[in-house]
């Protein structure tokens, strides 16, 4: 029997560009990161939890947060993975070279985990609890990519 022919309609090259407001908390975070290489979090006055990335509301307490706290820049790996399968990079539309490390970093002074790349130069050193430092971009633009990656310093 001959193979069935399937008629498919493709979505084509049209895209829906979108502009996301980073809000007043994101503005502070990215300005400090870009201009001063500082990481800023917000502390809940009720439960004391320090949130990085910062956002306006502590969901647990349902209160507005206004107390800015500097955290890091050093921290520890909360958990991590090493990507070995090439996914499409949403920034470029191309496959990202593998392997690369992806982790959750707990900055000194923060209570939440902050996600970013982890250098896989020495895979054996990448462990839960390992100390890390950020490596900053030489050409900061005020985005999450102003940090290139974190690297283990143990």
């Amino acid at each position, binding site marked *: 029997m001959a193979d*069935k022919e399937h008629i498919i309609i493709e979505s084509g090259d049209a895209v829906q560009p979108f502009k996301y407001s980073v809000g007043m908390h994101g503005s502070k975070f990215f300005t400090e990161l870009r201009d001063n290489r500082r990481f800023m979090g917000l502390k809940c006055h009720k439960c004391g939890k320090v949130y990085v*990335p910062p956002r306006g509301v502590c969901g647990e307490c349902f209160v507005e947060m206004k107390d800015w706290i500097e955290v890091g820049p050093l921290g520890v790996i909360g958990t991590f993975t090493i990507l*070995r399968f090439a*996914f*499409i990079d949403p920034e470029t539309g191309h496959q990202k070279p593998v392997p690369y490390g992806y982790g959750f970093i707990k900055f000194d002074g923060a209570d939440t*985990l902050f*996600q970013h790349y982890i250098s896989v130069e020495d895979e054996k050193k990448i462990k839960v609890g390992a100390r890390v430092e950020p490596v900053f971009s030489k050409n900061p633009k005020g985005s*999450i*990519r102003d940090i290139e990656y974190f690297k283990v310093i143990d």
Partner: protein
Amino acid sequence: MDRAAIIGVGMTKIEKAKVGETFADMAWEAVNKALADAGMTIDDIDNVVTTSSDFWDGRTISCMAVGDASGAAHKNVSCVEGDGTYGAFYGMTRSISGSYKTTLVTGHSKGSQSVSSLITNAAFDPIYERGLGMDMVTACAMQARAYMHRTKTTPEQVAMVSVKNHGNAQKNPLSQLPMKLTVNDVLKSEMVADPLHKLDCSPVSDGCAAVIIAHESVAAKFKQKPVWIKGVSFCADSFFFGDRDLSRAKSLTEAAQKAYAMAGIKDPKKEIDLAEVYDAFTYQELMWLEEMGLADDATAGKLLEKGEFNIDGRLPVNASGGLLSGHPVIAAGLYSMAAVVKQLRGDAGGYQVKKAKTGLVHGVNGLGGQSHCVWILDKDK
């Protein structure tokens, strides 16, 4: 509170790519199967809830596009964006609201038509997370690492979930990936994102499932044996993944405890006969079981090794093959619900478990289990 029962279920076969069918074609099949199962016609249905995701469907207001094929013409139809168990929750509340008696709930998706990692990437925060390429597999790999680190669960134990569920799927004709595997097969499969191998991950799938939920006053009016909803609850956790203890699922513990309390269950380990839990990834089955109190903390891997979660074990888990053997996102929780309904009616065929009076259904919505929906179903009212 008034009571409700599930009186009909219908599902398409789960497949890698239903190239020959539109969303509406899948809905037509599942809805008619559910009506036939219940012994109803579309005129016996007084309202409809459809469940879908606009991103997965590649269109806005995706729910309404399946309305005609779901028999929604001239009826009150409403939509839920999330797992099918959440659509069913809304459907149940409508059936006991006093305004309606019989709700048809559907859920559909086709993972085959898009690039899954870009779809799940788009669920993450666009300001801090999305640009780094975070997607569901990456997120769950980190959750797997956190869970295995805390509980000392081994890669071999995690791999056994894949062996068990793909093995169970051999008894389920609707399943996409029935496979006879060994632990070694899983551990030797391609490493996707440490510690997750390819066979630790559920596949990309297409499918549609439908359930019919009736008020107690009409539950026995049609031909099918009603399966009673004894308890149900859902709870949500923080949106940002990094705000949570990734090795835990606090909102699942809360949802399960509320569902147990509603159903009058005091000792879930003894009173629940079988469970279908959201095994999008192997480690999740073990983690969810512990967080629901169906296994003691950090013991699920060991209990699995002893065979306790096999079809003939103390608590059969994912006897249908689970989502590892076919994972149509959104529809997934309704497939699990239908599998438990069939078990409690004694209609599960090859994957029927011996003692099936009380069953648990678990649905997940959001990233790495941001929110959980737990149902306790029972053969008896």
